């Protein structure tokens, strides 16, 4: 679109960052719950954490970091006017998101198979600390997974707009903000991964 349109890219980016701060506080609250209960039930948390598969967690970390790279490169691509490459890179990000969710599905269903899910008989019969650990695990990875799905849909919609020529080098704030959202998803996982899969 040519001519004068009223846009405030800086304001749009500022608004996005303010939204991301509220997201940080949301996940910050979950990490705080984790820390307080870890102090109260260190042994039960250790038993719970050892039941998580750190190899799958590591693979998912690599996938998510790669998806973030693709999203960041997509921003560079659109700024350089490389529309086709932008769409391809966004496709790469979405592919990584799908891989991440597939692994998450395998992890969750294996836990469900062992009778471990919020409110399950197995957890009710066990020590309360273990039940708290898995409740927090499902809550944190669940809300994070929801963000992955939303982010993938958002970037898919943006990719269509890039392909249609609506977003280009001169008007790319929507893509920049979409990428910012995606990096936040990555950022949260950077903390979930060591806390749940590694340190216990």
């Amino acid at each position: 679109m040519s001519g004068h349109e009223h846009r405030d890219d800086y304001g749009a980016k500022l608004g996005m960052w303010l939204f991301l701060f509220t997201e940080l506080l949301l996940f910050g609250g979950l990490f705080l719950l984790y820390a307080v209960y870890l102090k109260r039930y260190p042994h039960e948390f250790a038993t719970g954490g050892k039941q998580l598969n750190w190899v799958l967690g590591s693979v998912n970390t690599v996938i998510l970091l790669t998806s973030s790279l693709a999203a960041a490169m997509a921003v560079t691509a659109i700024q350089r006017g490389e529309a086709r490459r932008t769409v391809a890179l966004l496709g790469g990000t979405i592919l990584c998101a799908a891989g991440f969710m597939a692994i998450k599905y395998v992890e969750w269903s294996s836990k469900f198979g062992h009778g471990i899910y919020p409110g399950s008989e197995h957890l009710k019969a066990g020590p309360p600390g273990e039940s708290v650990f898995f409740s927090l695990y499902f809550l944190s990875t669940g809300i994070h997974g929801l963000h992955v799905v939303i982010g993938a849909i958002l970037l898919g919609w943006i990719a269509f707009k890039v392909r249609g020529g609506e977003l280009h080098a001169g008007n790319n704030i929507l893509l920049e903000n979409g990428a910012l959202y995606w990096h936040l998803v990555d950022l949260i996982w950077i903390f979930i991964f060591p806390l749940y899969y590694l340190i216990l």
Partner: protein
Amino acid sequence: MDQHQPHIVSYTRLIGIWLALLVLTALTVAITRVELGGYKVVGALAVACAKAGLVIAVFMHMKYEGVLLRWLLFLAFVTLAVFIGFTFFDVLYR
């Protein structure tokens, strides 16, 4: 400040950051597989913070943003630190 000059980050720089993030991931896994006791918690969190810093600075372009966004980010971190810190004053000395 409103005259926002888009800063284009080169592909090579982005790939360099990605490689650094992969190395740091391998490092966290390595230090938590050996028994270091309490140090592994501190070590893993320190590495996670370093990774977060790289993502925010380069992938999220914070390094190239103006003062307003930087201060707001700082404010968000301070808020987070205050509510986590004060909760622990309560929890640890109850």
